[in-house]
């Protein structure tokens, strides 16, 4: 009986040890599986990180290259575009808005007082340098010269008029023709005639018949605006 119990106990003990051993092995096996799973996750993260880092390096290099290229190109392109636009406007302005002398020359020929013989012995058209500023040297001087060239003009003409009749009527007539001088009105403003009656020359001594009176005509506008073709 005692022997039988001993055998039974040994069997039970063996079974217990087996259970314990199997439990421990199972636990360690599951722990190992879990560790492998975590390891695989870690490996995936490592691979993803490497790929992302490679991509970052590529994009960063591309960005740096593009930035350094554009940092050079953009200001240059902006400066070039703005400069050619400014040049274009200046060219258009110079081509369209320049003074023409032929209308003045034509006016001098076409407009005469009908009751008097009239001629010029000097005509002078000059730039108005006052409006353009001082003409110095160097770049400022050149710019002032250009401004004067495109700026206002002054006209001064002198001559003799042969009057046969009233000075007052002649003066009225001169004022009337001054308003008809379209070319001058556009370019230099309305001309003003001045008769120097005190310096008149009377041929033959009969001042009622005919006399030569020196005159001056002046015109200068403050703002030049061309109506040129």
């Amino acid at each position, binding site marked *: 009986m005692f022997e039988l119990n001993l055998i039974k*106990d040994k069997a039970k003990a063996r079974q*217990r040890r087996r259970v*314990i051993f199997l*439990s*421990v092995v199972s*636990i*360690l096996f*599951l*722990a190992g599986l*879990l*560790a492998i799973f*975590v390891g695989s996750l*870690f490996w995936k*993260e490592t691979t993803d*990180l490497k790929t*992302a880092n490679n991509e*970052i390096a590529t*994009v960063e290099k591309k*960005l740096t290259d*593009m*930035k350094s290229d*554009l940092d050079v*190109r*953009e200001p240059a*392109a902006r*400066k*070039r*575009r703005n*400069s*050619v*636009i*400014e*040049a*274009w*406007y*200046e060219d*258009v302005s*110079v*081509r369209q808005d320049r*003074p023409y*002398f*032929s209308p003045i*020359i*034509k006016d001098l020929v076409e407009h005469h007082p009908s009751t008097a013989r009239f001629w*010029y*012995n*000097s*005509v*002078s*058209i000059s730039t108005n340098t006052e409006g353009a500023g001082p003409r110095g040297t160097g*770049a400022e001087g*050149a*710019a002032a*010269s*250009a*401004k*004067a*060239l*495109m700026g206002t003009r002054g006209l001064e003409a002198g*001559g003799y008029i042969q009057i046969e009749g009233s000075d007052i009527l002649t003066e009225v007539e001169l004022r009337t023709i001054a308003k008809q001088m379209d070319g001058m009105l556009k370019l230099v403003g309305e001309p003003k005639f001045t008769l120097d009656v005190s310096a008149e020359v009377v041929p033959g001594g009969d001042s009622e018949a005919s006399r030569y009176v020196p005159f001056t005509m002046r015109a200068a506008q403050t703002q030049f605006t061309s109506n040129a073709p």
Partner: protein
Amino acid sequence: MAAKGTGSSGDWTAGIVAIVAALLLGSALPIGLYFGLYKPKEKQRIEAQNKLEQLKTDMQLMIARSDRVRGLEEDGVAVAERLKELEVPFAVSDPEKMDVPEARAALLRLAEKHHLGLRPERQQQLGAEVVFIGGDRIEFEKGLKATKLMIEAQAYYHDFGRFVSEMESLEQFVIIPESLLCKGDTNGGTDHVFIMVVYVVERRDIDAIGR
């Protein structure tokens, strides 16, 4: 019986201790791996991906900037083409001599056509011409340049008037008259002296503008 009971209970105790120890030791490995390796790596990966997203956004902005720069360059080319067309009637200059040979030659032809003669005091001068170099060159605010030419002539008023009219309407050149001095014939005749200063607008070096 006592020996039997003690032996059984002692085996279970040791077994349970062994199981718990295995459980603790076994779980320590994956948990350690998870928090020690995986989590920091995941954090790094998320940071890298966020950075990548940011870089991609920057790249989009950079591409837009690149398009804008290309647009500026194309604008520059287009305006330069228009400028070139606009400057067709501008003269080619010789800056060293302050001359515009083609324009001066054209004015000389025009002077001859309208019978503009040399002033009496210049008729004996060697190589004297009605149109000659003025020795000045001016620059406009935005870089346009013009060369000065002098016209000194003796002529009938109408001939000179026609000369000026034709000069101002020349299609090949843009000539800006600056001043005119007309002195009447001192002998009471019809041959007057004309002194005129003109500026001939020069063609620019378009490729060099703004560079």
